[in-house]
């Protein structure tokens, strides 16, 4: 199984546990639409971007089992928890217009991606430097 697929599957577990619950109850309470469900995968994009930027030779990760497990198994879980939280503010802020609702979701997704990227930037830099 490729690392990208594995990390996506592991990401999807906490993201759907937390974000899926928020989405299901938000369908009734906060008029969420199907499009907004995909916002929970925003931090995964950030995760893949940072992995590709710093660990751009995925095969080199396989040489070190500890770092490999850490980057492919543990990091997607931490990222998935943030991803699940993306839909949380939508339950509290419920504008009447459709565009404003989408705007709230978009800002939350960007904020979560930014939080994920800024807190993991140095982690990936350290991991990337340790392969050279």
């Amino acid at each position, binding site marked *: 199984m490729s690392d990208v697929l594995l990390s996506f599957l592991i990401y999807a577990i906490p993201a759907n546990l*937390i974000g899926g*619950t928020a989405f299901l*109850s938000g369908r009734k309470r906060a008029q969420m639409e199907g499009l907004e469900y995909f916002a929970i995968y925003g931090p995964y994009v950030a995760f893949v971007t940072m992995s590709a930027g710093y660990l751009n030779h995925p095969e080199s990760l396989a040489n070190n089992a500890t*770092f490999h497990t*850490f980057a492919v198994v*543990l*990091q997607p*879980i*931490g990222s998935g*928890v*943030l991803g699940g*939280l993306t839909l*949380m*503010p939508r*339950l*509290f802020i419920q504008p009447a217009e459709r565009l404003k609702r989408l705007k709230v979701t978009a800002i939350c997704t960007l904020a*979560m991606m930014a*939080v*994920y990227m*800024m*807190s*993991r930037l*140095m*982690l990936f830099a*350290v*991991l990337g430097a*340790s392969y050279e």
Partner: protein
Amino acid sequence: MSGAESYFLSFTLYAIPANIIGGMCFVIGREKLGLMRLEYFFIYVPWLVLILLTGGFFGTGAMVTDDMSLNTFITLVQSIACGVLGGAILWPRFYFKAETTNEKLRITALSTISVSVVYAFTRIILFAGIQALM
């Protein structure tokens, strides 16, 4: 920034996202779910994990060393990201029905432990790597 000053700064920066997210949950949950005031203090538990991790890796005297960029990264950036997770602690209380005080505290305690564990295991190699850099 050194010693008590950086702990204070770190706590202040932690409290901003934690109170934006967790405080919103708390204020809404007071009416809807009967959140107790005691449960508000659970949102500060991930900060203790951050302090334990930095204390374990960098010593307890000051949060980090003199290196300005590493100091800023840990004191400012990590505290903000930790606060986002800390604000999420009251979140599962909205979905799990709890009537008695015991059940309420059990759900909050379980979510506190899970969030703290998620924070600790995703940052442990980060702190180990930064310690190796110094």
